[in-house]
């Protein structure tokens, strides 16, 4: 029984510390148990690591689609426009402000938008529509929405307009058709604009396709009686993760009444959906790790029970209880190490493959994902330091504590009685 302790054919020297060597050998006295324990650790770490990488990938795409597609990383509006969305709550001197903002640190591009509500008519058909006046060149540097239309081309000149696919269908208008837009101008007068449809976009998102039409900003400003004014400025920043910081920095120096909002503040439904989902994930991971920690405790209960005699002898020849407990801690550490190795070997390639190839959501989910969750039909896993380190480190703490609990008994071990134990 004591051959491991005697360190057998590998005499301890300063180059090879004694305790880890003994602990390592002890592990292989019961291979099956070691592998099963390491397997449990690998299961927990591999599964949570896999799930976290998928979540990270999903949130990343979700945020990117929601912001970089249309809404921008940071939005600027007047506070009263945020509260009551009245047409006259516009930001003044937009041209100067946009140039100023573009020179701020971290800001890549800024695009102004005029947002009007109007009645769009073709012949005797009329539907309510959101008319968006945009600076196309700036928009293309800021978001992806304006890069592509399903049919035709973007509206580039005054007198041109692009419409959503459902709106076009409702109005029964095609590319080349004429649309009349009627609304209320800033001073309450009638705003009217006639335009040729140059393109039709189809985003798969009902709100856009059903009610949006896009025209050059100058034309919309003129029709609705606006000067150098806009309702919203959307900004692209260097790193979407800095949205809150950049918004805060911008807020330090803006015209009175204008506020910059991070995407989290501007699109609370997205950031909250992510928070709820992440919270649910954390709870599940915690339970998985707890269940695995129980089996590790069990492993050490069994180990210590079987080695009572051995520990008695070690005590009898003068080893301190703390040293024995230290040895068990090293054994636990090795089990964790094996588990991590297994997890990397099994889950690693899967995660790698999913990060390159992505995971197809299926037809039904794709529709849902596209329309409601701002996801493409393929999900990619994303690996970062948080994903790589969180679950292994928590599991490490779990394993060490799990090994400690049953080994506390060793302090009470009486050498003579233990030697006599069966």
């Amino acid at each position, binding site marked *: 029984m004591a051959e491991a302790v005697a360190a057998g054919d590998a005499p301890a020297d300063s180059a090879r510390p004694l305790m880890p060597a003994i602990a390592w050998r002890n592990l292989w006295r019961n291979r099956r148990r070691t592998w099963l324990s390491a397997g449990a650790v690998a299961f927990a770490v591999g*599964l949570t690591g896999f799930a976290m990488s998928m979540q990270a990938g999903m949130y990343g795409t979700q945020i990117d689609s929601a912001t970089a597609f249309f809404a921008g990383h940071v939005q600027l509006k007047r506070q009263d426009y945020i509260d009551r969305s009245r047409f006259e709550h516009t930001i003044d001197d937009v041209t100067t402000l946009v140039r100023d903002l573009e020179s701020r640190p971290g800001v890549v591009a800024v695009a102004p938008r005029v947002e009007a509500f109007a009645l769009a008519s073709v012949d005797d058909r009329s539907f309510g529509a959101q008319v968006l006046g945009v600076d196309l060149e700036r928009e293309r540097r800021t978001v992806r929405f304006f890069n592509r239309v399903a049919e035709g081309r973007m509206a580039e000149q005054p007198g041109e307009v692009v419409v959503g696919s459902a709106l076009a269908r*409702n109005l029964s208008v095609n590319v080349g058709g004429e649309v009349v837009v009627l609304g209320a101008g800033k001073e309450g007068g009638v705003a009217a604009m006639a335009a040729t449809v140059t393109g039709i976009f189809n985003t798969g998102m009902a709100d856009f396709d059903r009610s949006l039409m896009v025209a050059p900003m100058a034309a919309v400003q003129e029709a609705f009686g606006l000067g150098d004014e806009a309702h919203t400025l959307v900004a692209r920043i260097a790193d979407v993760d800095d949205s809150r910081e950049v918004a805060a920095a911008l807020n330090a120096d803006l015209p009175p009444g204008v506020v910059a909002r991070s995407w989290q503040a501007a699109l*609370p439904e*997205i950031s909250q959906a992510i928070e709820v989902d992440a919270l649910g994930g954390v709870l599940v991971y915690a339970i998985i790790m707890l269940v695995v920690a129980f089996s590790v405790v069990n492993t050490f209960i069994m180990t210590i029970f079987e080695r009572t005699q051995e520990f008695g002898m070690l005590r009898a020849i003068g080893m301190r209880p703390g040293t024995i407990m230290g040895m068990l801690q090293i054994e636990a550490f090795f089990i964790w190490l094996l588990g991590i190795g297994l997890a990397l070997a099994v889950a690693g390639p899967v995660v790698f493959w999913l990060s390159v190839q992505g995971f197809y959501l299926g037809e039904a*989910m794709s*529709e849902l994902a596209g*329309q409601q969750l701002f996801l493409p039909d393929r999900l990619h896993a994303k690996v970062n330091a948080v994903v790589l380190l969180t679950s292994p480190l928590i599991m490490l703490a779990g394993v060490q504590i799990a090994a400690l609990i049953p080994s506390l008994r060793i302090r009470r071990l009486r050498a003579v009685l233990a030697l006599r134990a069966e």
Partner: protein
Amino acid sequence: MPIKLLFQMSVRNILRHRRRNGMMLAAVVVAVAAVVMMNSLIRGMQQDMADAAVENLVGHVKVLAPGYRDDPGIQKNFELASDWRPPDGVAEVAGWAMRVRVPAVIMSERGTRGIQFVGVNPRQEGISFLSSARMAGESLKDASDGRIIIGQALAEQLETGLGRRLVIITQGADGLNREAGFRIAGLYDADGEGMEKFFVFTGVDALQKMVGAAVFTELSIRLHQEPALFALKEILVELFTGLEVLDWRELEPQAAAMFIFADAAVLIWFFVMMGALVFGLVNTLVTSVMERIRELGMLRAVGMRPRSVVAQVVIESSVLMLIGVAVGIALGLAGIFAMGDGLDLSLWSEGVESFGMRTLLRPVPLFDDVLLIALLSLGLGVVASLYPAWRAIKIKPLEALRR
């Protein structure tokens, strides 16, 4: 060997190592309780989404004119007697509503918005969210009530209020635009702001008069129980030839996809938890067999059959699982009870609403699910004991005795 004796031996073997088996039991209890609670929350979420989809003027089944879904408007209509009722013999019908629903533009002196203008018979709307929404002011009196009800959020946008007049423009049945003034009778407060901004209601007769045709654009039917849906759909298809008969899964594909996804999630979580558990279980059982090598060898030597040895290990595992599952389910149900009315998610209200859920997540424990969890767990206990049992019968009596 009598089963009673085997059972007794298995139980005593468990009791020989209380600490170890107690720890194993704790793991089973935590895993099962967690699965039971998670399962009831997923079911609650699922029911919430389905209810919301059905209540949102959809109903379980809807009859529409062909083409209405692509091009909603008064032209895509059908005629129906205003005292129409579902044919006798259709069980489980909770109610039905015949409506006119058209896109329209609403204007106050302060603003203009695009909306869905819905003509309803208030007596039939017990089946939609309209009957349960909190209401400021008055509801519509009857089908000929010519006043309107609008959402709180829309009222704020239009800066208008109770008793004020709004102008609504929509297309008439002849294709020409109609414009009429309506007085606000009430403001409703729905679960989601999206609905409040989207739907404006008036009496169906009044709207028919405005568009100039005594027709409907939709018939919505709600059931007490979803399983009756299929039979109802068949009858309606017979009845309304030339019209589209669609159920809520077809009308709200997103909610339906979430519904299917939740079904899968229930099983995924079960197998994940049990996967975490199975390593410990096998570990414990193998140890329990290996430390009894001599004992099992002797039993074999005096004539115990291999299958009795297998039975002993399987029973040992099953008893452990049985106790763990029973306590785990009890604990899980206690946890569900402790959640009371549900989990308050109002901190994340906008995120939760974007999923089509309510901010109060009620756990819905289903007997069938709990039974399934119990049976699958016990099945897993048996499967996990097969390898240890195989180890046990591989023991050769003579070698074991010599050790």
